[in-house]
């Protein structure tokens, strides 16, 4: 079973993502900000991390920065999931090493497909 961490501070967004990924056979871990993601990473190596950018305490960019320094996580796919959609922000996210940058609002179905393709 693939493990996924979903980080977002919007409860209602998390709800639908959690429901859909569970339904598609993922082992889902919910984080409310970057620090919680890092907490999970101490204990496990996920296959996918979905990161919002604007979050309290530790934002998405900083979280990715820390993830990239950890060699254990080199096979983990990181996908930004953000309402920020201007080219500057997207470019920045990809340059930092994110595997994809998906802007809100998104189609859960397409997001799922995109992730499946990454593992093929």
């Amino acid at each position, binding site marked *: 079973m693939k493990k996924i961490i979903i980080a977002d501070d919007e409860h209602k*967004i998390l*709800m*639908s993502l959690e*429901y859909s990924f569970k339904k598609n056979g993922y082992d889902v871990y919910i984080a409310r900000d970057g620090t919680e993601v890092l907490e999970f990473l101490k204990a496990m190596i996920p296959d996918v991390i979905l990161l919002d950018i*604007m979050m309290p305490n530790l*934002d998405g960019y900083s979280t990715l920065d820390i993830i990239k320094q950890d060699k254990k996580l080199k096979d983990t796919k990181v996908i930004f999931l953000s309402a920020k*959609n201007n080219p500057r922000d997207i470019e920045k996210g990809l340059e930092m090493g994110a595997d994809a940058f998906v802007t809100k*609002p998104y189609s859960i179905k397409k997001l799922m497909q995109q992730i499946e393709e990454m593992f093929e």
Partner: protein
Amino acid sequence: MMSSFALFIVVLIYLALLFLVAHLAEKKKSKVWINNPYIYALSLAVYCTAWTYYGSIGVAATSGLNYLPIYIGPIMVIPAWIYINTRIVRISRVNKISSLADFISLRYGNSRSFSAIITIVCLLAIVPYIGLQIKAISETFHLVTKTAMSQNILTDNATFVVILIALFSSYYGTKYVDASEKRLGIISAIALESFLKLFFIIILGLFVIYYAFDGFSDIYEKASKFEDFKQKNIFNGIEGAMNWMVLCLISGTAICILPRQFHTAIIENRQEKHIKTAIWFFPLYLLIFTIFIFPIAWGGRLIFAGQNVNPEFYSILIPQHFDNTLITVLVFLGGLSSCISMIIISAITLSIMLSNNLIIPYGLLGKFKSENEIQNTRNITNIRKFSIFALIIMAFGFYKYFILKTSLDSVGLISFVVIGQLAPAFFGALFWRRGTYKGAVIGLLAGLAICYFGLIIPQYYFSYNQELKGALREIYNAFDFFSISFLSKIPQIFFWSMLVNTALFAMISVSVKGNYRERNFAELYVDIDKYIQNHENAFIWRGTAYVSDIKNILERFLGKNKTEQALRIFNLKYNIDSQTETADSRFIKFSENLLAGRIGTASAKILIEGVTKEDKISLKEVLNILEESKENITLNKKLTEKSEELKQLSDDLKNANESLIIKDRQKDDFLDSVAHELRTPITAIRSAGEILADDDDIPLDIKREFLNNIITESDRLSEIINDILYLDKLEHGEITLNIKQNNIIETYKKALNPLMHLIQQKDIHISEVNLLNQFLYEYDEARMIQLFQNILGNALKFTDDQGTIQTKLSEKENQLIITIFNTGKHIPEEDLEMIFDKFYQSKNQNILKPTGSGLGLAISKKIVQAQGGTIRAENSGLGVTFTITLSKK
């Protein structure tokens, strides 16, 4: 009593002190010395010589109020200095003028002969005046030491004092070869002396009033018993008043054109603004001086009633009478100061005139042309050194042979009258374009003739013969016709000489066609403010001249380096190619100026003329060119103004552009934030919708939850949209306020109640402190409720569970002050102002997720502002306080 030797030692120490001050000032050149308006103002008090120091006491005792005009005249004229002297300073600076003779003669065509005549007039007027100072030094020296005057000058101590002064002056007075340079050392010493002489006369005055007598009224009471007291202290009718007035005129003129006054006021002026200080400080100085004349004079008469003593020396005799050696010596030193400063400055100014306007132009120019800079500099300095020394010795001789028996007062006044003859040409130079060389010279000579015939010959003739006899008597009798019965001798001669002088000057000037050069300088003098920037442009000259020839001359006086440096500056100023071979009028004037300080304006002109070939220009042509150049200058000024305007405009545009760019970026940021805020609920709605649409076997409770999400997020969406539109309306003032009298406590409760369940949920302790005396205020209640809810809602979001929110209402200076404190975490200091900006986090916190939409505080601020109040946030102790101030209507 003091022995001659002891007093001589005191004099030596005193002179050493002056040397030291001069030396220190010269060496340090610190700002305190250079930019001190008081040193400038004090140096002007070189006006108060032995004549004022001793002489006016004699006048007060013997002829009453006539001692006043020499103070009153200057006090009346000095306020005009702010206008007159400012202009003279500018003219002198622009033309490198270093003496009175240069100033007057340059205006009348830069004439060598005129400057020589002025020099001679000054010499004739001032040398006896210097003699007068020497007489005062010598007599007071003998008075203090109670020794007899020695007929043998070699054994007379006073002789040595004079020689010391002569050495001091010639050493310090010729420090600079350029005579228009400022002499810091000398001026500082003079200022110190001016201070000391005033200080000493104050000491003496107090001594007389409070030690010798029982206060001022005591002197007055006792003195009023003298038979002549009343008559001496009133104006004797129209007659006395007329005399008095003319005397004021004489001294008022003298304060402007005595060479030593011209030097301290004009040549040594460092900053025009110093004149502003001088015009109140110097009259004050004179007033203080005057106050003590009366008690000393009448105190002296009371003490020495019936004794045969010279009232001019009461100031020394009084302390001596009381056996007070200290005050006697101090008074003597004060008198010495008066004399020395006058001697030094007069000798320096006369030596500059003597060298620049007489010796050099009439004897040494040829020699200068063939020698190098070092030799020339040495020669010029030596001529001046020798002149200073010679002048003082000449004055000494004059004193020994001509003025032994006369009073200080008459010699001083005669000098004033003679110098006064320069007044028409001097003031004409400043204000009258039409004045000509011929008019000025003929007027001056005629005035002088009257002075000599009317004053000098009788004055000095009497030194030898007790009465006029024979042919001379007959000539004088023939002129008796002119005597004015109600004026005494000196005012009378002043009146006639000035009348004839001025009349001739005016009549000849208007009837003789002027020379083009004098007309050129007339424009430059009268319109100095117009030409101050580019005076070289206003100098008219046409002919053939080569830069190399002129450069050659300059090098002989300035040396190679300084010449090249000066040329570089000139070329830069007028944007001239350094390879240019021919010289234009600007270069001629520039070069003349470079030389003028060293050898005087007339000699400078002669030297430059020697290597150039000038074409004759008619007066008409000159006037045309001047008109043109004036137009050019006006045009130039207009252009400058225009370009300044344009620059201002372009700066404004640049600023506007910058603020537009900032506004544009703010707009982008705002749209970005709005989009971001909107996308979040949309995402939630879309996701929920997608799941509901695609997933058929979704459990019922989850289905309900997703549907609920769609509803609440839609509400949130519309709330954001409403907030944005509302804020926009507030910003554009589209919402009209409904201001009425309301109870503020009730309004607050109305705002608080709907929030109570949230507060209870978080277990937050909420309290109110009410310090108001009354509760009715005028405001829009609905907005106020909204404001309270925004601030309280904000507080709620940031306050942890079981925290505290406290609201305090108070009144101060007609203002309603509401503070809402919460125990939430501190706002970063740099953000305290910005939290009231809409989506303020978009700038500083564009990554960390904010709590709230970011519009609440912006709306709150607009609401407060609309009602004329203010709102601010500050970190206080454990939390954050918002303070709302509303002015009470």
